[in-house]
């Protein structure tokens, strides 16, 4: 499926809207108890996903992390089969074995892996095979900024450069690693780090689709031509938190109820007869700082919505028509998925079906 051209804002907008709607529906299904386990939405990453995926041709590979819904939808996975999979149905694209962290589509050559950092070495392996068997194809690895502290990802950068492989790493920097502020556990600067490995690096604001598209195009063309690997560093936001029910987000969203429980426990910790008195104020400072940063970044994320921002590139009537059509498609997919999943006997208290 050749992707839409950058000169075609309508198709781009459609792709982004489809990703957002799929996420919105899955987030709601999670809240209704229909998505088992965790759900990491990619809300806020649409411009990056579209900007990269639009350059891909059939045969290119994509290694994904735990935010895999967006790229899967963008590349053309059937929304119903994806939704069913995420909801743990045996009718899903992976027969209910995978869930959102392990979505697998061999035809599209896309695979998600929940082990942080693993998309790097997987893409390196994909690239070794592509170079030997299907020259001119490219391997993509999506990962977060916190994944850049994982050894195997740094090792993968090195291998990619040492062997001049056709691979492009896409780092989505949302500043957070679950509830840890990434900068607080990361030495140096990530862009410098990537450059020092010998990767060609492009830096963009991931909320601006056109910038992502241009930068990704440069790196992907280069890699296809055998000129070596690259890393696209794109900043973004995670307005939905790390996953649905994110404890930090709950705190910033409902401070009055949530702080109550937290405060009791913290007070207990502080008042414990035996502890490290010297350190207690510092501990509290860490927690306060974290809450503050989370609140700030949440507000920023809400303000800088990549989908809303791109909407301006499309005429109003056309944008509205796209929204209506896609709402119908995605809404039908989710309605069908809910009907098929029905009420869960063991797992869900209320069904949420229909």
């Amino acid at each position, binding site marked *: 499926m050749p992707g839409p051209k950058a000169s075609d804002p309508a198709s781009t907008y459609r792709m982004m809207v489809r990703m957002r709607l799929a996420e919105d529906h899955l987030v709601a299904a999670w809240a209704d108890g229909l998505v088992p*386990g965790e759900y990491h939405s990619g809300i806020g990453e649409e411009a990056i996903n579209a900007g990269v995926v639009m350059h891909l041709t059939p045969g290119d590979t994509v290694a994904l992390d735990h935010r895999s819904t967006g790229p899967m939808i963008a590349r053309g996975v059937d929304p119903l089969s994806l939704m069913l999979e995420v909801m*743990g149905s045996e009718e899903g694209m992976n027969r209910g074995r*995978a869930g959102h962290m392990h979505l697998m589509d061999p035809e599209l050559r896309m695979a998600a892996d929940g082990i942080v950092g693993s998309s790097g070495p997987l893409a390196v392996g994909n690239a070794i095979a592509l170079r030997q068997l299907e020259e001119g194809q490219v391997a993509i690895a999506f990962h977060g900024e916190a994944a850049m502290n994982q050894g195997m990802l740094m090792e993968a950068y090195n291998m990619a450069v040492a062997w001049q492989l056709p691979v492009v790493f896409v780092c989505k920097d949302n500043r957070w690693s679950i509830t*840890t502020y990434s900068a607080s556990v990361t030495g140096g600067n990530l862009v410098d780090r990537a450059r020092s490995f010998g990767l060609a690096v492009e830096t963009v604001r991931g909320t601006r689709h056109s910038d992502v598209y241009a930068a990704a195009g440069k790196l992907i063309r280069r890699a296809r031509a055998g000129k070596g690997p690259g890393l696209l560093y794109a900043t973004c936001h995670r307005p939905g938190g790390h996953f649905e029910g994110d404890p930090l987000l709950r705190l910033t969203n409902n401070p009055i109820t949530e702080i109550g429980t937290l405060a009791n426990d913290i007070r207990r*910790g502080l008042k414990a007869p035996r502890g*490290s008195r010297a350190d207690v104020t510092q*501990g509290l400072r860490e927690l306060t700082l974290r809450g503050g940063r989370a609140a700030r970044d949440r507000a920023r994320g809400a303000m800088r919505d990549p989908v809303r921002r791109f909407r301006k590139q499309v005429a109003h009537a056309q944008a509205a028509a796209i929204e209506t059509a896609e709402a119908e498609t995605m809404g039908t997919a989710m309605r069908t998925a809910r009907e098929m999943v029905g009420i869960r006997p063991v*797992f869900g208290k209320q069904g949420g079906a229909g």
Partner: protein
Amino acid sequence: MTSMRYGEAVDFALGEAMADDSTVVTWGEDVQLIHYELLSRFGPTRVLDTPISEAAFVYAGVGAAMVGLRPVVEVMLVDFLTAAWCPVVNAASKFHDFSGGRWTIPLVIRARVGGWYADGGQHSQALWGMLASLPSTTVVCPSTPDDAAGLMLSAVQDDGFVVFLEHKLLSERFLDYLGGDSRNTVDFQDVVPAGGAIGDVPVPVEAVPFGSGRIRREGEDLALISVGVGVHRCMEAAAELAAEGVEATVLDLRSVAPLDREMIVEVAKRCGRVVAVDEDYLRGGLTGEIGAILLEEGVECSYDRVAVETTIPLAPNLEHDALPNSSRIVAASRSLLER
């Protein structure tokens, strides 16, 4: 005695150990938020967030233990501990032996295990069989709050390498961290064993020795042997069997390494029928080890086992079938009774 939740009991024991001994420290991903009570009590030098660098921060635990600290290195899930398999296999479990016994390496790895809440095959494994295969390694998995506290205390006080496995299904705080409490549409009440999630804990905490099992239920017809949440599934199966007039003993091993050989042999001899139940994989693991002990000790008994034989699926119904649920245990028990 104080009533505590399972996860709370672990943190309580760790907190008391940290208060007793300033060389006890803990680090791992998100520990400052997950254990904010410990953070507020001991500060960020002793409760330290790590980057996502498992291989390095576990290896670093060995290094710190070599120079006088007693680190409790937390790995969010045991599935991710495999990214740090090298320090586990080649250092933590080895250096004491390499030194000819001269160097003590008091390292605890604390990791969460287990499924039943439908989180998929990379977030639900037990893996204690792999860990327990290593020489000079203690592996424990408590099934109740008092054992959770007692085993954590023993783990911190021990001079060797201990892997402390905390079952997520019992760990209310961790299920909540994963988003649990924020949706009231999902209720784990049917799967979370009440007797494991909350219970009385002696204060001060009493250390529980490694390699000592605990009888959870007495019966003469058959022995169900397990660890962790498997113990609770055995209790459910035993209740079902009791309705049919069959009385089962349930043995909670508490430690996967060392195993309580004596108690295994004792219940097997007494009951003459053994079902080994394991939330870990069937092959190369705990259930086979129990069978080997019975053969080595020349115990005459019939034996069957219920364990995990497939990649754990995400779909809740498929996950339930893949894990050692009480129906599977009852079926195995009946087949022994009918022999």
